[in-house]
């Protein structure tokens, strides 16, 4: 078990190093970095909604390389078929058998770029694989590598020829984030730097893959005190009863919130969840799971979630 300190700002050395590495590449996005790492630890998938050119790929690539993992980027297009991402069986004339050629999904960190550009058929193939962590092709099941994390991106501004993900599909993502433009002082720095993927690769890992897998298991041991669990459930129930919300959070949403709170507590070196673990992550976990009565965008939903959090008393 992780060492427990009385203060909550202490990271384990390896997690600290991981965070520093990502922060050194994606500058001024400490919170996003932290949530992305938490999602990785919680075995979740990430949905990033943002305009192009703010460093989504860099984030995914850096994360993958820092934990010594394989990385694949899939640019989604409208003519893509499920086999283009999963893989395809090819007849080998020598062995006279069909051989499965793995698609780009068979990687530890997969960047699914502009997922809303492709057809629902391909989207659902990806989402099924995300959920089950394996793919079935012609009655054969292939397990995806561990750790496995999909970082999907959506461009919120372009609508022509897109297939926005329905809420039921969005529900499969543990976290929904917005990267946003970097703060002015960081952006000035970024202007003179080139996204040097080779340099990132050369810098080498800061943490071993096996250690990430170990941490993913340890997170399940993070405890939650009864009143904190009640607090979590109060928030979930309120999303179902709030008059502004048409569809509240699902049970999977509650599961994910608990999971990410565990990861957040673990990240801070605790073996127990505090209310802030829930309050600070809830907008990112629940924002894309609810449908407002007057839906405009996910960020409106995030505001409603924040309102709910401001109304719900924290256990003392």
């Amino acid at each position, binding site marked *: 078990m992780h060492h427990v300190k009385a203060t909550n700002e202490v990271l384990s050395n390896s997690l600290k190093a991981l965070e520093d590495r990502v922060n050194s590449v994606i500058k001024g996005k400490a919170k996003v970095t932290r949530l992305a790492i938490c999602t990785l630890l919680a075995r979740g998938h990430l949905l990033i909604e943002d305009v192009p050119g703010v460093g989504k790929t860099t984030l995914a690539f850096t994360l993958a390389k820092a934990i010594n993992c394989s990385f694949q980027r899939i640019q989604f297009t409208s003519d893509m078929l499920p086999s283009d991402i999963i893989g395809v069986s090819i007849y080998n004339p020598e062995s006279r058998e069909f051989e499965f050629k793995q698609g780009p999904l068979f990687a530890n960190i997969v960047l699914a770029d502009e997922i809303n550009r492709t057809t629902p058929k391909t989207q659902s193939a990806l989402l099924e694989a995300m959920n089950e962590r394996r793919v079935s092709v012609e009655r054969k099941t292939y397990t995806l590598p561990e750790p496995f994390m999909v970082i999907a991106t959506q461009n919120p501004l372009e609508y022509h020829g897109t297939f926005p993900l329905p809420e039921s599909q969005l529900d499969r993502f543990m976290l929904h984030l917005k990267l946003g433009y970097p703060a002015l002082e960081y952006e000035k720095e970024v202007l003179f730097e080139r996204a040097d993927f080779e340099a990132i690769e050369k810098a080498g890992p800061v943490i071993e893959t096996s250690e990430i897998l170990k941490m993913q298991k340890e997170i399940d041991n993070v405890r939650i*005190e009864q009143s904190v669990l009640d607090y979590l459930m109060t928030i979930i129930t309120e999303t179902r009863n709030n008059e502004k919300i048409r569809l509240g959070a699902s049970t999977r949403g509650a599961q994910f919130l608990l999971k990410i709170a565990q990861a957040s507590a673990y990240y801070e070196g*605790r073996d127990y969840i*505090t209310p*802030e673990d829930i*309050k600070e992550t809830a907008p990112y976990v629940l924002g894309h799971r609810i449908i407002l009565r007057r839906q405009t965008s996910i960020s409106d939903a995030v505001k409603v979630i924040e309102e709910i959090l*401001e109304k719900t008393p*924290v256990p*003392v």
Partner: protein
Amino acid sequence: MPKLYKSITALLAFTGCISLVITGELNPVFLLPGIALIPGYWRFLKGRPPLPRWLIGSLSLVEVVIVFFDAFIVSGDFLIAIAHMTIVFQALKSFDLREPWDPLQVFFMSLLQLIITSELTLSIAVGGIFIVFLFAMIVAIVLSHFIKEGTLHKVEFKKPLVFISLFAFIATSVFFVSIPRAKGGLWGRRTEKGITFVGFSEKVDFGSFGNALIDSTIAMRAEVSDKRLPLYWKGITLDYFDGFSWKNTLRKKKRIFSKAGKFTIRYAKPEKLTIQKIFIEPMDTAVLFGLGEIVAIESIGRVLYMDEAGILLLPAKINRRFSYTVYSIPYSRASPVESKPEYLQIPDGIEKIAALAQQVAGKADTALAKAKLIEAFLRTNYKYSLTTKPTPEGITPIEDFLFNSKEGFCEHYATAMVLMLRSLGIPARIVTGFLGGEENSYADYIIVRQSNAHSWVEAAIDGTWRRFDPTPAGPPKMASLLFLYLDAMKMNWYRYIIGFSSRDQIMLLRSLTMPVFKMPEIPGIKITVRPVFIVIAIAAFTTLTVVFILKISRLKRYPPETKLYLKFKDRVRKKGGKVSPSSTPSEVMHEAYRLKMNPDAVSEFIGIYKEIRFGGRKMDSRIKDKYKSLFSGR
């Protein structure tokens, strides 16, 4: 709609309608639609669908027409017509409750019904209904609020309900005590059915009286300050007898004006006064009753009349229940009798009676002795009876009583005695009023009934009026204890609820400040404590205790580390930090940073708190001390 909300709606609708029914003022025909409330609410509670809108709408339109018809032709009274209308609309609405806000109309109509009821009657039942209504209305409003907010299912509303109810009860009591009753109703039409069959009457005539003496209707209730005066409730005096009936001919009245609510007839020493607070039932007379010689009266209005015989009258008959206070002294020489020829008037043809008087009292030397002899003669030789036979032809009723039947009731005795006194040259008159009454020890007052109506004699002897009662005592009547108990409740209702006056307020205040606190006397040092300061001190102490207990009980539920954390949170708030119940420990911590509190200590303090509270770490004495010192360090 939740079941409780439905039940409360039904309860309020029935409460409103029943309160109108018990006034007994409504036309029974209009009560029939009220029966429809029963199936209406039965269907509503069972969740049956409401009746179609067109049906309800057209029936409502018909009712609006009926209201005008009713107001101008049937009852000829707008208030009654509206009362009828509310019953019909309540009945219609019971079939038309669709949305959660529909019951609000029911609540409003019930309130209207209760207001109309309060206007029509002062019965004690209204008090009971009011209490039911108050609490039901609080529950209804709280429920409708949560239903409107859509948050009923997760609100713990029992506690606020109890709290609001208690608050309403206390506030109502405070208002009740601090606001004296308005005289007359809201619209000044508070009427009671008067007692039309009165035992007491302003004209005495034989035959009509006997029936009244077995009528146990309550005429008045009275609180008497002491027992110095015998309970002869004097009403009017009568001077002229025409052989069959008595009349008052001394009707010239003078006015007495009130000064600060008090009509003073003449001065008397306060210690001699007997105070009677009289609650008179609706009665067909303007006469004010009282014991002994009345020297002052506290009553409504600005003017009273006093006729030549000294009878006090209101300017007009008041056919409703009201109360007044009488200050009396015993008869004395201080109020000399104006000798008037009317007090010696005798009808023709009473020689036989004069002869009897001579025979009974002629030998005595003084007027007093003569009167006493006649009184004793009548008391011992005649029989009291309420059932008199009709007087035979050719003889006056009074001769029949004196010489033939020898039985009769107070009228006969008093008439006989007055005539006998007058024939001996002693001025005398008949007095009618009430004698005695039952003492109700439950609330310490006297119940006077119509059957207490009585006539007696006053004779002017040695320059003052003296009372004689020649009537032998009839068998005493006893009321049941249950009756007395119920009547005591009624009396208290009239006395302290309906009749709560500004005088009562003053008395209440006085009773708070009156007690004299005697401090132990130490030679040389004189301590004087103004009672009012003691009251303030007690009030302040009580408030502080309550606040303290509340504060303790707020923290008592929490373990020690939480108490300290809450205190810390309070401290951050008091310094201007933005903290709320939804603030997490980290948010509180960051507020503390912003307020330039020692960051290391704050961070460690919050860390320990979270460890113990959420991490389940045991608080050993070392951590406890550390935690406390971190808290008190800032």
